[in-house]
């Protein structure tokens, strides 16, 4: 009875994490008889009676409320279609695209055109994964300049850090503007090229070492040694 695998250990699908009815399965685990079994590759997280597995890899699964970075792929008479890194494109309707008044017959490419990179919010995801986006809200805009990185969506929480601690540290040391989309896309824009490069290398470092302890100190050391050069 009890915990079979300790907190913060790596489990593979099908491994039994706990035994007995004292625990409850959370995302990443399921109950089978009196056992709690991991169904994803990841780190075990035991908080109170809840046992979950924090995945280390995985494709981006859109959720309502996510702020994502997307690229305009297509446009029709009333919609823009945006690639947000999922199998199917998300729709940005004219109503949600801007607060400006769009006249009948206006040239829609004046607002957003092919290959524009935007920060948008997911307003709705249906059961069959049709995705609606909105551009109305604080910080939602078209991005200009800078560079775009792509990391695994599961590593976004580590890049952001607790209450944004990690990302604000990178912003502070490198003096860059950084936007992290929940879909694993990171936009970095700085005044100096070397600062942009340092910030993007730091983000990639976090993505590589996302499963290790003491990441904040390591990234801090990396940034400080990099900014001295």
């Amino acid at each position, binding site marked *: 009875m009890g915990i079979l695998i300790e907190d913060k250990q*790596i489990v*593979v*699908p*099908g*491994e*039994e994490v706990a035994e007995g009815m004292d625990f409850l399965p959370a995302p*990443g685990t*399921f109950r*089978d008889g009196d056992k709690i*079994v991991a*169904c*994803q*590759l*990841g780190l075990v997280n035991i908080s109170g009676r809840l046992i979950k597995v924090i*995945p*280390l*890899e*995985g*494709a981006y*699964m859109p959720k309502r409320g996510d702020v994502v970075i997307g690229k305009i792929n297509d446009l029709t008479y009333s919609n823009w279609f945006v690639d947000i890194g*999922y*199998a*199917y494109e998300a729709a940005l309707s004219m109503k949600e695209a801007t607060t400006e008044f769009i006249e009948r017959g206006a040239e829609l490419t004046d607002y957003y055109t092919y290959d524009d990179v935007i920060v948008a919010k997911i307003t709705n995801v249906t*059961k*069959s*994964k049709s995705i609606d986006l909105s551009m109305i809200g604080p910080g939602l805009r078209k991005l200009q300049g800078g560079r775009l990185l792509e990391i695994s969506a*599961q590593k976004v929480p580590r890049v952001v850090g607790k209450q944004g601690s990690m990302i604000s540290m990178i912003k502070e040391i490198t003096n860059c503007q950084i936007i992290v989309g929940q879909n694993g896309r990171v936009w970095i824009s700085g005044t100096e090229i070397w600062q942009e490069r340092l910030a993007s290398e730091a983000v990639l470092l976090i993505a*590589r*070492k996302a*499963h*290790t302890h003491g990441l904040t100190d390591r990234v801090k050391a990396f940034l400080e040694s990099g900014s001295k050069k």
Partner: protein
Amino acid sequence: MSYNKRNDGRAFDELRPMDAKVGIIKNALGSAMFRIGKTVALAAVYGPSELFPKFLQKKEEGLLRCTYNMMAFSGSGTRVKPGPSRRSREIELVTRNALESVLDLSECPRAVINVNIELIQTDAGTRCAGICAASMALADAGFKMKDLVAAVSAGLVGDKIVLDLDYSEESFEEGAVDIPMAFMPRTGKIALLQLDGEITKEQLREAIKLAKKGCKQICEVQRQALKEKYKTEE
């Protein structure tokens, strides 16, 4: 003539030496290599991506699509021909069935997940090696699975029940029976069972028992390989 000693000197219930590695293909969402003896399988997982033609799309869940290919230089015998064949279509089907029994794709409706299995070197037991590699690659890609799938073949060579036949045994002169089996070690369920040849009920039971034992050993190798990817980076 009876088969008293195995051609490569193994015990009758012994697997060939195994080796597994995860994350070998950087562009794929998940990937794995599985080697058993001289058979080497590579598997890569891509997706979820848009699925065409549209009538194949499933509203409730994602579709799993497997491809299996023995590379033209991978081995000897008549089986190795470049390109798709009737045989590879069948193996793709049984591989998909075996993997679908553990995989949960309800998170990606309408989409397709592609699993590509390539055999770069073959010495019998390719469908089993392919399933082993594919199951690791799917776990590496972060998909939800009830269990890992391990697979191995057992069979009858001459008058002996043996585990993990190699090509010399599969083509044994006096006749051989090959039983590839995929197994879910935690639940103890069988995900694939095929049989080629003539065998009695008792012998089949014994062969399945032997294959189950082998699958448990393989699963241990798979688990270690999946964990290894994250250990070495410490």
